[in-house]
C-alpha cells in the first residue's frame, strides 16, 4: 500500500525519515527491470528519483515510468547544481524536484504537496465494470452475482485488465505486467490464461475480454 519507488538503492536518511513520517512505504530499485519485477500489487504510488549518482540511468527510469500504460505520478527528482540549469529540457519527465541539499522540512513539504497535486486518491478496493466486480482487498471476483473461482494468476490478469478498460494490451505487456517473473509457458501463457478466464466467466460474459487480432487483448468496450 502506498509504496514509493526509489532510485538508486542508496537513499538519504532524511528522505527515509520523511517517507515514514508521511506514512509511505518505499521500495528501492537499481535498474529498469526492477520497475516491473518489484512493483507492489496495487501499483507504485509515486517515484522519487535521485539523479545525482547516475544521471543517465535516472533519466532512463523517468522515461520508462512515463511510457508505461498506467502512469505513475508524482515523479519527484532529486537534483544538484548542474542539472537544475538543464531541467527545462526534461520537463515532461517529472512532476516536482527537490534540490539535493534541501532540508528535512522542505523535502517533507514538497513530497506532501506533490502527492496532493499529482497523486491518486486512496483507492477504493472495488474495481467494477458492468456485471463484473473485483475486491482487491479480499481477492474476490463476482460476475453477474456469481462468485468466480479463480487461480491467482487468473485473478491477477483479470484485475489488471479490469483496471484498464478499453485499452489494448499486447501479450508481451501482459506477461511483464501481470506475471513479471519467469514462467514455463512464455508469451503463449497469456492466451492460455485468457481462455481459462473466458471459460470461467461463462458464455454470457466471456465477451468482456476481446481478442484484438494480431495485437493482443482488450477488456471492455471503447466508449469514444
Amino acid at each position, binding site marked *: 500500500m502506498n509504496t514509493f519507488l526509489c532510485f538508486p538503492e542508496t537513499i538519504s536518511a532524511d528522505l527515509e525519515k520523511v517517507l515514514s513520517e508521511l506514512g509511505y512505504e518505499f521500495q528501492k530499485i537499481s535498474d529498469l527491470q526492477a520497475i516491473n519485477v518489484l512493483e507492489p500489487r496495487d501499483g507504485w504510488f509515486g517515484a522519487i528519483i535521485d539523479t545525482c549518482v547516475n544521471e543517465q540511468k535516472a533519466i532512463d527510469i523517468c522515461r520508462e515510468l512515463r511510457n508505461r500504460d498506467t502512469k505513475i505520478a508524482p515523479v519527484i527528482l532529486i537534483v544538484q547544481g548542474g542539472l537544475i540549469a538543464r531541467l527545462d529540457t526534461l520537463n515532461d519527465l517529472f512532476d516536482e524536484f527537490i534540490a539535493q541539499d534541501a532540508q528535512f522540512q522542505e523535502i517533507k513539504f514538497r513530497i506532501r504537496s506533490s502527492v496532493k497535486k499529482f497523486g491518486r486518491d486512496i483507492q477504493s478496493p472495488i474495481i467494477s465494470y458492468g456485471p463484473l466486480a473485483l475486491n482487491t482487498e479480499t481477492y474476490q471476483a463476482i460476475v453477474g452475482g456469481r462468485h468466480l473461482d479463480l487461480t491467482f494468476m487468473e485473478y491477477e490478469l483479470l484485475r489488471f485488465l479490469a483496471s484498464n478498460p478499453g485499452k489494448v494490451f499486447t501479450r508481451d505487456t501482459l506477461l511483464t505486467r501481470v506475471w513479471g517473473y519467469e514462467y514455463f509457458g512464455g508469451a503463449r501463457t497469456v492466451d*492460455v490464461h485468457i481462455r481459462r478466464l473466458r471459460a470461467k466467466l461463462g458464455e454470457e460474459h466471456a465477451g468482456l475480454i476481446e481478442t484484438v487480432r494480431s495485437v493482443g487483448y482488450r477488456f471492455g468496450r471503447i466508449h469514444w
Partner: protein
Amino acid sequence: MNTPAAKNQNNYVLRTVEERGVRFIQLWFTDILGTPKSFSITPAELEDALEEGMTFDGSSIDGFSRVQESDVSALPDPKTFQILPFQKGNSELARIFCDIYNLDGTPFEGCPRHVLKRTLTKAHDLNYNFFASPELEYFYFANQDPTKPPKPLDNGSYFELTVADLSSDLRKRTVLALEEIGIPVEYAQHEDAPSQHEIDLRYTDALTMADTIMTVRLVIKEVAHENGVFASFMPKPLEGVQGSGMHTHFSLFQDDKNIFHDQNADKYLSETARYFIAGLLYHAHEITAITNQWVNSYKRLVSGYEAPIHISWAHNNRSALVRVPVIKETHPESTRIEYRAPDPACNPYLCFAVILAAGLDGIKNNIELPQETTYNLFELNGKELLKAGIRPLPLTLEAALAEMEKSELVAATLGDHVFEWFLRNKYDEWNQYSRHVTNYELTRYLPTL
C-alpha cells in the same frame, strides 16, 4: 519463497479460503505411477503449509522413500490453488498441487512433478516452451465389480446423435464442470466403441497440462460416481472394440513463435520439428514403458484398432505413431505433432518428460527424419515392414521394460530413483501377470488338452 510474488500468491490463497468459507484444502501430488494422492488440511494449517510444507511419512507412498529416510515434505504450489466444483458437506472444497521436497529443502527425487519440471527447465534453457494438448478417451460402465465383465451404458458409436443417452449427458456435465474450474475443452464426443467418450483439452504448457490431466481424470470419475456409474481410463477394457488412448499434440514455442512452423518449408513443417519427430521415433521403443505402463496397455497396441504398433510418421495416416496434421496456411501457430502411443492411464508428468527429452535429443543431435509412411501399416506383413525399415513398438510390457532398461535417455530424464523403482515395480507386475492362468487358457486348453 519470500519474493513479493510468492507472498502475494500465498495471500491470495489464504484470503480466498477465508472469504469463501473453504473448510478443507486438499493437498494433491502423484506417486510414480501417476496415482493421485492427497491429504486434507484445515485453513488453520494452511499458512504454515504454504511457507514450510507439510511433513509426512513418504514410505507410505509406493515408490517414495525407503523406510530409514522416510519423512518428506509436501510444499503447495500456490499458483495451482483452485476451488473445486464439488462440495464437501455444505462447505467449499479446494485443491492445491504440491511438489515433494526432502526435509533439507532439496527436491525429492521420487516426485514426478520434479521430473517434468527438470526436463522443462532444460528446454527453457534453450528458450523452448513445450505445449501439450491431449485427447483423453475413456469408458463409462454400469458397474465397478472387477469379477464381472464391464457393462457399457450404450451402444452408440462415433459422433452418434441419440436421445436420452445417459453417457452423453454425463460427458456434457463433465465438460461444464471442467469449464467452471477453467479447463477449456476443445471437443467432446462419443468415440468408436460403445460407451466410450473422448474429451480434447485446449493446449497449455506441459506442466499445467499434466496437473490438468490429473484434475480431469478426477472430475470425470467424480461426475460418473455422482450419477451412480463408473468411468475408467483402463487402456483396453473390452475385447474386440477399440481401446482408450491419449493421443497428444505437442508444439515448441520460442517466445510467441511456433518453431515447428516454417512458412517456406514443405507443408510448413520446420527443420526443428523434423528433428524433434526424428528424436521421438529414434527413442520411441525406449519410452514406451512410460507412455504405456500397464500389462493391459499392450492389449490396446494391436493391429486393427487405429492404435499405433509401428515406429513411423506421416501427415495423414492414422496408423502412424507420429501424425503431423496438415494445417491451414493462415494458422501458423497451430503447427504441431501428434504422438499416438500414450494411453490415459499413464503418469502424465513422466510421459511428457520422456517425450520432450526424446524430441530435444533429436534437435540436439540433428537426427535425420526417415521417409513419411503413406501406406496403411496394418496391411503390411513383417517381411514387408522389415524391408521398409520400419520397426515395431514393443509388443508387451516386458519387452518395453527391456528397451527402457537399456536407455540412457530415459535413465537421465527420470533420474536414478524413479528409473530404478519403476523398473522394479513393473517387472514385478509382469511376473505376477505371467504366473496368472487366464480365462483364455482355461476355455481354450482345458477341454482339449
